[in-house]
């Protein structure tokens, strides 16, 4: 079997007495699209923070194309080709949309090349009209798009999206799902989302987190009809 793009084994994160992520074995292939669902507190965001080096796992390993990145710094992981849109948008609020994306594009590229990349990304995400507005003044949905644009300009091989559709109108959700499918032609993605309609639009394989563990991993139809998954989302105790 070929080396997976991303692989975690026994990945564990404890905060004091709370185990937020509990020995997770997870693998993602090249150019794969995976959806990650699970109730609040299931450990999805903690999982993402460990993948991007924002949290150091208590135990276990993370490998990116076979390379151990468990103890790598956030910026080193980003340089290897991992981009993330965080749950609460992390953007440069005082700068314009253009500059937000430019800062992402300019790492490893000369300015003229970076400018071309910014123009392309903004066209792709439809932000050209507001390119010179200050990001701090934009609506939540637009700021999410700015963050996605910056991640795209970074040209990562793996893109992590933490609730990309949160706070968006239906039209925006549809546009986001189209964009994700388009991105997936060349890049791998892991998408955390609660919106099941959205999951149906994009997903092939879904991994369900519950209480820090992987509950099931299956096709989208199988997962959404799974009685246990329904129960944990409705708040019942998982069997």
């Amino acid at each position: 079997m070929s080396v997976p793009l991303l692989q975690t084994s026994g990945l564990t994160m404890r905060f004091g007495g709370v185990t937020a992520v509990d020995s997770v074995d997870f693998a993602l292939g090249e150019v794969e699209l995976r959806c990650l669902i699970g109730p609040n507190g299931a450990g999805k965001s903690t999982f993402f923070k460990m993948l991007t080096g924002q949290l150091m796992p208590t135990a276990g390993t993370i490998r990116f194309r076979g390379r151990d990145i468990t103890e790598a710094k956030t910026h080193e992981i980003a340089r290897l080709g991992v981009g993330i849109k965080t749950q609460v948008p992390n953007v440069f609020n005082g700068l314009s949309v253009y500059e937000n994306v430019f800062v992402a594009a300019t790492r490893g590229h000369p300015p003229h090349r970076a400018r071309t990349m910014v123009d392309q990304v903004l066209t792709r995400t439809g932000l050209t009209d507001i390119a010179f507005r200050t990001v701090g003044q934009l609506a939540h949905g637009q700021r999410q798009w700015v963050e996605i644009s910056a991640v795209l300009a970074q040209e990562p091989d793996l893109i992590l999206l933490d609730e990309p559709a949160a706070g968006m109108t239906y039209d925006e959700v549809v546009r986001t799902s189209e964009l994700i499918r388009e991105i997936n032609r060349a890049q791998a993605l892991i998408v955390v989302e609660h919106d099941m309609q959205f999951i149906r639009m994009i997903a092939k394989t879904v991994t369900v987190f519950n209480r820090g563990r992987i509950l099931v991993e299956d096709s989208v139809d199988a997962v959404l009809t799974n009685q246990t998954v329904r129960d944990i989302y409705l708040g019942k105790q998982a069997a």
Partner: protein
Amino acid sequence: MKPRSAWPSLCAVLAAMLLVMFGLPLVTGLFGLVQATVFIAMAVLALSQGFIWGFGGIMSFGQSAFFGLGGYTYAVAVMNMGDSTAPFFLAILLPAAFAALLGYFMFYGRISDAYVGVITLTVTVILFNVVNSTAGDVYHIGNAPLGGFNGMPSVPPLNMPGDPSTPLEPQQIYYVCMALLILVYALLRLILASKFGRVVVAIRENETRAMLLGYDPRLYKLLVFAIGGGIAGLAGCLFTNWGGFISPTVFGLSQSAQIIIFVLVGGLGTLIGPILGAVAIEYLISVIGSQQTLNADLILGVVLVAFVLLVPQGVVPVLRNGVQRLLALRRPAALRAPKVAQP
């Protein structure tokens, strides 16, 4: 709306500075020029604080540490070497290296912003106390007695590069200081326009996002802090040249506080603001100093409180916004910035 190019404003500022540089000697005598020289040294110091604080987001309470270090480095080196050429560069390099070392411990040690303030403040207090207690013949570096709280008198001024027998006249020192101020300003503008500068500002805006995009904020902050230290050192060298004298008060707390007031009054996040703030405050202090009724520190305190309460952005940003609004009003409505795009 495309943002205006930065070139017109840069050219305008440089032209205005050159005008002042060559215009001032026509309207004032030697006394005025000598007084202007110390204002300029303070303006360079204010630029260092304005750069690291307004653009790097690093709140240093101890820029005076690098200022004093630059001044003392120049004094000690020139008294030992005779020729001022190497001491001039040492006065920039040594404080920059010291800032880099201090920055390494602060930024790579992941110390929070508040503690950066505390540590820089402590460093300048330590330097003050150390240098203050070096009175007596025992304390000297080579031929240079440190003089403790009495300071170091009769420090030779800058000379023609490589020619110690031709010291510069006070007018020439004025021109050198002004030229260096312009140079530092232009250099900082270039740095900010570069890729490095953009990343520095991005880190100020959101350190996490910068890291997630693959930049190491520790390295960028360290470099910004070192550049700021070097500029503050240069200011210290110019200050020592102005009076031919340096004493431990350059490390003092009131000196540190003044630098912050320069930047607050002029405008945080601009480069011209700190320059104007420094000149205005220094001028105010010299005017107050010529009479006995009001205490200068008291007035400075009132100015600080008034600005924090009434003009927290500082003078330059407020003026700039005002001018932009006026320009927008003069243009016909159709040409104004497009209305907010629908979310």
